[in-house]
């Protein structure tokens, strides 16, 4: 059987391993940066249930289906579910984390432009999973007086 030279295969495997190490290192670094939640992030409680999203701001304001935030501020979402698994997703801001009943998951972001973005559910939750949507509205910050 194979009395041929083996070195091409070893070089090839070496390159593949090197590539994987690079992927792992880059991903680890990016995740480290992304997961670092700023200390001054304002908490927004996000509740998913079949089949809509509701929000509660730090000052007690509640919203259903729509979320208003201010440009340039950091927000920390504390995500919960009332019934089955859902997944809170603002695709334009690459915010995604599951809403699991019985636990609170945390993810943060800081919107930099004014605009409107879609909120969707990214975990199958039954009949109206496909339409469990909402709107994120990023508004101008009030001028500080």
């Amino acid at each position, binding site marked *: 059987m194979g009395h041929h030279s083996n070195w091409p295969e070893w070089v090839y495997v070496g390159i593949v391993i090197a590539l994987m190490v690079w992927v792992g290192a880059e991903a680890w670094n990016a995740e480290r940066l992304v997961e670092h939640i700023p200390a001054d992030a304002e908490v927004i409680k996000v509740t998913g249930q079949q089949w809509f999203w509701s929000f509660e701001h730090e000052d007690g304001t509640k919203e259903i289906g729509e979320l208003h935030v201010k440009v340039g501020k950091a927000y920390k979402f504390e995500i919960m579910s009332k019934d089955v698994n859902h997944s809170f997703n603002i695709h334009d801001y690459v915010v995604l984390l599951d809403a699991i009943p019985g636990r609170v998951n945390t993810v943060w972001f800081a919107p930099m432009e004014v605009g409107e973005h879609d909120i969707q559910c990214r975990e199958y939750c039954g*009949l109206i999973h496909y339409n469990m949507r909402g709107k994120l509205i990023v508004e101008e910050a009030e001028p500080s007086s």
Partner: protein
Amino acid sequence: MVLELQKPRPIWQIMFSTHHTDVGLLYLITSLAFLFLGGTLALAIRAELFLPGSQIIADSMTFNRMFTVHGTTLIFLFILPFASAVGNYLVPIMVRYKDMAYPKLNAIAFWMIPPAGALIWLGFADFTWYATPPYSIISAPGPAADMWIFGLKILGISSVLGAINFIVTILKCKHPDMSIGQVPLLAWSFLTSSLIVLVAIPTFAAALLMLLTDRLGVSGFFNPAMGGDPIAYAHLFWFTFHPEVYVLVIPAIGMMYEIIPRFSRKPIFSHSSGIFAFVLLSMVSFSSWAHHMYATGMSFTEKTVFMIGTLAAVPASAMHVFNFIATMWNGRIKFATPMMWAVGGIALFFSAGAGGVVNAAMPLDFQTHDSYWVVGHFHLFVMGTIAFGSIGFFYYIFPYVTGRMYNERMGQIHFILSFIGTVLVFFTQHVLGLYGMPRRVYDYPPIPEWITMNQIASVGAMVIGVSMVIFLINMIYSSGKGKLADTDDPFNLGGKYYYPFEAKNPHH
């Protein structure tokens, strides 16, 4: 070993037989029937998603049931039984034994498949093929859910029985003069995938039982209202099903190890590398399960560990690709239908793996989790690699089993259409996922880019559908009326169509 289609036997003789070729044939016919059933569901799903709004499916619950049964059918009732078909037919021949180690148990393992299939199809559950709680406990209506659970329980037992049979046959019943290193790579693929099954399946069997008792209300393993944790199910499920996807792919790669050297008119570049890569892959498959759970709220450290476990599997898979390329090098390749499927399968295997590496990078999961990227990614594996390898191997053994040749031109058209269709559907779905479209959705907002990509994907699916109709016609016509094949060398390669092995004491 020519099938009796030339001299038909009574059907009940085949049905009650325990001989490995008959059991293999039963698995083959059953798996192909479910291929067409599951594939039809896929066509319906793609037709519905052609445009926003309701097309041919009236309501979202029906749609949800269809994709659940589509996935469950093609994984458990096509891919696994097809692999069992090939294994049953050929493993005893490859190790020079008269039958499988436990012929009656073998037949029993097969006969569990039709009732399980009936349970799944008559139930038509809607909770996706993961059956994740709490939805599957509190929100999924019975009896569909319970029938699915029982169906999968039965299939799990059938898998384990089959695995035991393969392991004992290969390790204990092989010819005394055959060393384990001389066993053909296709048999090695069955050995390693069966070992994975033995370790991985019991975990899911436990999870299914716990899910059932939770549904009955007598336990609270996964139900938060009773103090349970849904994430526990996710761990149990993925601990089984990540290795399980390797159980799906390893036999298909084994089948490519049969086709590629034969049609290149050379032996495999490195038999020992192939064995090493199979063994390594099956071990490393256990180290990556929670990459499916990156979005559940795991800690940074947990995610890092599983990312490393995922990336560790890539070199083993890459070794197979190298082996195939090095085998074809300096060969004299005949691109008959089986070879086209095998080579197309390797190309798609590579793309699937490349997309998977991207997914494994933790922060990129925030973009792609539960979106159409994932759908495109895994379909490149199950369709692009596994179905391509399986279908190619089916063409390869067709003359062996039936004694007749299929129509070569139709076989090539089948391949070309399927390849184009597969690329159209699943490459497009990667981009669709990047644009944010979630998976498992009956309808979507009329975003222009989403509509265009869904339409491209649906057209691709129809192209695959057409190719499968050509396949069906070719199969049925050729098995009865095809040209008689030269069973020593049906593909006119110049070599022999068998497993070369010189026994020192040929008492067979």
